[in-house]
């Protein structure tokens, strides 16, 4: 297992990824036609790594995550490949997916209340997972539930284990969800906006628990959020999505220091940061709107809003690659752009000559 400080310096490139997603596409059949929600997404997750997925509402973050374990409704058509420790998940039979969901991939979502059973104590709910998947006796399962509650930082776990969900605060319910998700020691934990509904002081505690799981158990985490501050806090690497596609992928420090896609760069300058005030400093806006996802055009999906767009951008879609002629960019920094931002001084100055 890698230590947290090492992982922060970037993903260990030589280690085989626990999760390897290639060419993942998802379309939905709706009354008004086919919607292309996720288009040709590539991403990897190394052992003990936290990868953040950021992007606007509706850009396909949740659909990407849910397609992995077959959680999408029937109207979804999924293609491409997602290998979890070598096992192909896309198109796998339900029995394989069910086994994976119990043991190797687990999810936590934004709203813990809707995922918890209101009429069962938290101890029973965690215990049931253990009884079903690990065949523990009821007594052993309860003891293990107490251990798990301790692991996720719930005070007085011996009392709390007999509480019903409504007796817990929002932050504690989210901790219970995490305890349930890690009960069977999954290799991969998918956290979809796990702190969005919580206060910042409570959020800090939850992020700490997730980091702790990675450090102690080596769990790999796919962390979905639209909050760049949260990404800066927890992620080792970042995947930026825009309108169903991955537009940029890089180690976290590299991405914030040298964003190469114009959408990423736009997000970073649009975000108020410490020390900026309206009296002296204007936030830069990203003009225009996110495109409708009915069909993915043979163009860069950001072209309509991009100050650097030209005929090439409107005529063909750039592939995600590290093979661009920007000196400052590292090989593990991928961007899907015909005219990347380049070195920091050339950035945000409109189109390049």
């Amino acid at each position: 297992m890698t230590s947290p400080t090492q992982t922060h310096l970037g993903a260990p490139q030589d280690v085989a990824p626990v999760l390897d997603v290639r060419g993942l596409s998802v379309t939905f059949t709706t009354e008004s036609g086919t919607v292309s929600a996720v288009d040709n997404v590539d991403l990897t997750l190394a052992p003990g790594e936290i990868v953040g997925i950021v992007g606007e509402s509706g850009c396909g973050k949740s659909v990407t995550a849910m397609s992995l374990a077959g959680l999408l409704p029937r109207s979804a058509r999924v293609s491409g490949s997602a290998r979890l420790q070598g096992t192909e998940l896309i198109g796998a039979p339900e029995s394989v997916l069910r086994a994976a969901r119990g043991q190797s991939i687990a999810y936590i979502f934004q709203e813990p209340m809707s995922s918890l059973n209101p009429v069962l104590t938290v101890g029973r709910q965690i215990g049931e997972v253990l009884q079903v998947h690990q065949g523990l006796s009821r007594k052993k399962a309860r003891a293990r539930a107490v251990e798990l509650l301790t692991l996720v930082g719930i005070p007085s776990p011996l009392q709390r284990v007999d509480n019903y969900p409504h007796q817990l605060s929002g932050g504690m319910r989210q901790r219970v969800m995490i305890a349930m998700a890690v009960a069977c020691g999954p290799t991969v934990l998918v956290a979809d906006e796990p702190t969005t509904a919580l206060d910042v002081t409570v959020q800090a505690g939850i992020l700490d628990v997730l980091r702790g799981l990675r450090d102690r158990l080596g769990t790999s985490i796919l962390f979905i959020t639209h909050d760049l501050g949260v990404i800066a806090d927890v992620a080792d690497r970042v995947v930026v999505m825009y309108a169903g596609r991955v537009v940029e992928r890089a180690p976290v420090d590299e991405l914030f220091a040298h964003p190469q896609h114009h959408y990423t760069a736009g997000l970073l300058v649009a975000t108020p940061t410490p020390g900026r005030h309206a009296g002296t400093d204007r936030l830069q806006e990203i003009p225009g709107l996110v495109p409708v996802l009915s069909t993915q055009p043979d163009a860069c999906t950001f072209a309509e809003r991009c100050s650097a767009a030209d005929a090439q951008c409107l005529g063909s879609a750039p592939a995600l690659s590290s093979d661009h002629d920007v000196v400052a960019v590292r090989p593990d920094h991928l961007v899907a752009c015909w005219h990347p931002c380049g070195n920091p001084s050339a950035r945000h100055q409109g189109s390049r000559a």
Partner: protein
Amino acid sequence: MKPDTDVALEEVALELEDLVMHFGSVRAVDGVSLSIRKGQVTALVGESGSGKSTVGRCIVRLLEPTAGVVRIGGVDVTHLSRRQMRRHGKEVSIVFQDPAGSLDPRMLVGDVVGEPLRLQAGRISRRDREERINEELGRVGLRAEVARRYPHELSGGQRQRVSIARALISSPSLLIADEPTSALDVSVQASVLNLLADLQRDIGFACLFITHDLSAVEYLADDVAVMYLGQLVEKGSRERVFARPAHPYTQALLAAAPVADPPRQRARKAVLLGDDLPSALDPPSGCRFHTRCPLAFDRCTAEVPQLLGIGDGDAACHLVGPDGAGPDVRQTNSAGSLQ
């Protein structure tokens, strides 16, 4: 009571004196005093459920306060209806968090924006009204033709602009902005913050900016008021509160809000408070923050700390002196929840 001169009263756009709002046994707002000078932006921050929106709703008279006084431009409006307030020329508007939920889906955008004019004293002609609507839409950066669309035909950012146009068409002296950017995508939040900053500078209304987004507060506010469980725990200028927060809760809040800068964020240390938030049904004795405060001692459970002057602003903590000096929870090593 303080001996306010007429001049001073003129300068104050909003004054709350010991505002109390109880819903049955829920003590949502429990004695909040606050004033905003003309043309200034005061941010009201605090945890979810601390009573921020309730304060805003009491000011715009959507709620009848249980006790306390609301003064707008020096006039006591606590028991006036909105119509009576208009007769006094005291106009207050509110912009809500959720632009989709706060606009009537069956009304055209033009009618939504123009509605406050119909309610105003003195009828104006249809022509004049339309002109005002177009002018207001233009001011928030929307084209006039948007007036003939329905709210659901607009993007989230455009809808929020519509609700801002509606709030401003009656030329309010005070704008309550309740989480105006929280429901918006990152790339449109900036445009709404810029718009509020521009309008505020050009028109000069006073603004109570309710939010939990501290980076937006630092960007937009002149003053900051921090709420915890129905009460203010700290007030002061933006510069002072961000540079030298006095109350342990304010310090923890600032430490917990992540900044979008990885090396800087990693170098910071969150103060882990524990997430068993006390309830407004049964607030803790003494200092309401004592159940989560890393610095709490005997006196905190027994004695309510008063909100006292600390030079620049006020703070309510037994450990903060009259010069604002006191401990900083960000320096103390709080035990991590996993250790």
